[in-house]
Structure formats: C-alpha cells, structure tokens
C-alpha cells in the first residue's frame, strides 16, 4: 500500500507513575524517577527496589547515554510505516543499567553502533513528548 500516510505512533497512556517521564520534554527535561537513596528507577515504581524507600521524585538527568542494544527494523508492520528505523535500549549516563527504550534518530540506521554516545531529542505527539535519542 504505497502512498499510505504514516501511521500514528501508539502513544503511552499517561498515569500517575509515568506522566513526568512522558511529559518532561515539554520543558526540555528528561525526568527519571529517583529515590532519596540516590537510585534511579525506570520504568518508575512507587517503591525503591534497592532500599525500600517510598520518597521517589522525578529528577532531571543529563539526557546523555550510550546505545546498549539495538535492532534495525526493516519490516513495515503497518502500511506507511517508514523503514528502516532503529529501536534501541539506551543506557543513561547517570547509572549503570539504567535503560530507556527508544528510537535512534538523526543518523543513518546503519551508523548506529554499540556504545555509541547519544543525547535525548524530544518529539512531541499530542500530550506526550517522546524521548528520542540522536548521536551526541
């Protein structure tokens, strides 16, 4: 079905736990839940799995990280879906194994490499600011 318009992304439903992560981009901030003990928690939880604390605060991070794992998707799952695109897990610089799933944008998919430094770039859709990542 060539010529189909690009399908809308299936955006996240917003709730108390995830709203800050998905909307922080309105102010250009990547907000990751962080416990008083210093531990970042993503996806966010109301209790810290490390210390048991319950004072969890959405906290701005640098928005910088490295590509920890990726795949170049070639299959147009829906008519009009632009391929290839890169789906990835980015490890945020602030904490080991603090992974955010994302798309790598702003470069040729074939240029994406393991441990490539990236930085956040928000993409606004309705009330959601999707954190995308591009080469830093």
């Amino acid at each position, binding site marked *: 079905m060539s010529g189909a318009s690009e399908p809308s*992304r*299936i955006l*996240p439903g917003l709730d108390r736990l995830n709203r800050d992560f998905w909307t922080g981009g309105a102010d250009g901030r990547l907000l990751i839940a962080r416990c008083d003990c210093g531990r970042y928690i993503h996806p966010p939880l109301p209790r810290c799995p490390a210390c048991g604390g319950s004072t969890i605060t959405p906290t701005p991070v640098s928005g910088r990280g490295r590509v920890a794992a990726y795949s*170049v*998707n070639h299959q147009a799952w829906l008519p009009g879906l632009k391929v290839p695109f890169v789906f990835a897990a980015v490890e945020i610089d602030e904490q080991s194994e603090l992974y955010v*799933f994302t798309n790598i944008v702003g470069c040729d998919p074939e240029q994406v490499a393991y441990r490539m430094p990236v930085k956040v770039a928000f993409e606004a859709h309705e009330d959601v600011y999707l954190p995308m990542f591009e080469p830093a």
Partner: protein
Amino acid sequence: MTTHPEKLVCITGAGQSEVARPSNKSGLALTIDACLNAINSAGLTPADIDGLSTYPGPVANGDGFSPVSATETMLALGLTPTWIGASTDGHAHMSAIFNAITAIASGLCRHVLVFRTVTQASARAEVSHAGIIGGGRSIAQRSWGGQSWTLPYNALSAAVLYGLYGQSYFRKYGATSQQLGAIAVHSRKMAALNPNAIYRKPITIDDYMASRMISTPLRLYDCDTHIDGSTAILFSRADLAGDLASPPIHIEAMGMGLGGIGAGLHTGDFTSMPAKIAGDMLWSRTDLKPKNLDFAQIYDGFSILTLMWMEALSLCGEGEAAAFVEGGRRIALDGELPMNTSGGQLSAGRFHGYGHTYEACLQLWGRAGERQVRDAKLGVVSNGGFGYGALLLRR
C-alpha cells in the same frame, strides 16, 4: 508437605487440533477437538475432568492471541470442574501448567486439562493489522503497562524487541547468521516429518540467508508463524495415572523464572534472559543431568530465544549455543541432542509453547512416527520469551 509438587503429578493425555492458516473452525471448536483428543488418549471421559486451566485466558480484542476462555470450554465439554483458572501474569505459557500441577498436588483436583488456543491466522485474514502488538480489530489508541515503554517506538512486533537480544548476542559472542539460520533449516527438516506441521517444505541455509530482514539480525525464517490451532495436555494425580490408556509421563522437575523485557525492566547486557533462573531451578530438583537427555523441545517463537534457552538450561555453556546448532548435525534426529522434533513454532506453527510439550509427550509415548527419537526416555521442554517455564519429562 512436599516441596516438589510436580513429582505427585503425571501427564496422562495430550491432544492437538488441526493446524491451519486459517482454519474453517472457530477457536472454541478447535479447543474442543484438542481437549477431546487429550481426554481420549488417556482413556478417560469428560466426566473425569475436575480441573481446567489455560493461558492466558480470553483476550476479546479480536487479535486471535487467546480467543477462548476456560469457562466456555467447560460449558462446551459439559464439565463440572472443582476448579478452573487462567493465568495472564507470571511465567507466561507454562504458568497454566504450573497452576494445574499445584492444583492436583494440593488435593484440589484429580485430572486437570490444560489448553492453549490461538486463531491468529484467522484474525490476520480478517483484519490485516491484527498481528501487531496493540492490534486486534482496531489499533489501540494508547498503550498501557509493560508494552507502553516500547510500543510508542514502533516495536510493533516481538521481533523488534528480540532483535535487541539477537544483535547483542551476535556482538558479544561473535555468532553469525549462518549459525542462527541452522535452527530454521533444522525446523523445516523436522516439520517435513510431522503431518500436523504448517510449513513442511525444506529450506536450505541459502534460502535462509536470502530471506528478508525483519529486524536485525532476525530474518523472516527466524520468526514463528501465526496459525489457528489448539493443544491440550491432561495432568493427573500420580496415583491415578498408572491404569490409564497411555503410560504416565512423570514430571521429573519444573523450573520458573521471571523478569527481563517482559517485565518492562531489564538488567544485564541483553545477551541472556532470566530463563536461567528457570533452568537452574529445574536441575536443582532432580539428580538427572543435561547429559541424560534424549531430546529437547526448546522454545522458538524466535530463533534467538532458542539459543538463549539452550544456555539457560545448561545444554551448553554461555555463548556456545550458536556453535552447537551450526550445520544442524548435533540437534538432528540422530544427533547428540535431537531438538524441536515437531518442527517447533518456526515450522510446525505457533501453538505458543504447548506444541513443544505435546511433542515431548508423543516422543515419550513412542508415537512420533517418522520423527521418533529412538528409545526416548527423558526430554526437556522450555517455554517463553517474556516469562519463563521449563519441564523435565520422563517416561
């Protein structure tokens, strides 16, 4: 009180419906076929069944992932069970089996029928986007729960998620497409010997290398195939299992694991799954060892999962599975560890884990026809890429 409930339970029957893309039968009709085949293979009648368990329970969005409930199956079979259950959370496919085992071992039930039905081929024939995550009759407007972290990024198939595993595994261990492709080639070879497999025409490694890329490094032939079909497995209290029509299959051990991409979280470097927790639990509950196995039915929703499951079950060392399967000789019917002898999900069709347990039963009963493993006495089954379950089955 036993700490090994599985040793109080046996498999006494197993049945499967036809497999088709799509079937002319409804999901419920396929379910009834599978259930009656399982009950008949035990020489029992529906009146004997006092428990019913399924995974994951009804999903009513029209995606064919799980169109049939335990309740309507109960009604259609005329059962009056003490207990029925469905499990969407936890150890994925095999959770319904673990629930059945514990229901019997705790004294609640005598004979529990476990079924898994899919009509994903029908669903896709009706609505082209039914096969995507978030699909069904209409595409979801918003995503919730674990999927909401990946769907917005167009990870519309598990192939995209598992591409991360594939890419990471290849990078860390130097695995190659030629090695991974051996699983798909082997599956077709086995499916050719299975009359109830969906894809029975052999392929070569060159066919594999020429197949289109889905999500690197996973190609078309690395992905299982949507079907319509149902499988039912009958579990019975061990002391009732000896006098039935099929020899009892003993559950030597079971193993369960949780976490990973399916839990929305991930630890580690994406080269293994928490399936290792299930594998280690399984071997901790028996004196038998991987070297005692006569065959292995390893989950292959995507071929990369098979490699990671082989390592999780200690069938080989970490990072060694790709070399193990290369060329297909060691996993062949006459190899050192015959694997996925039905053709697995890649070629027999996506019975979603239950095809693997069903095939293990046929092998242990000596009813696998042309693909029979000679003198098969012990086999391992593993299920899942989001939650993890394994069974060690013994004749």
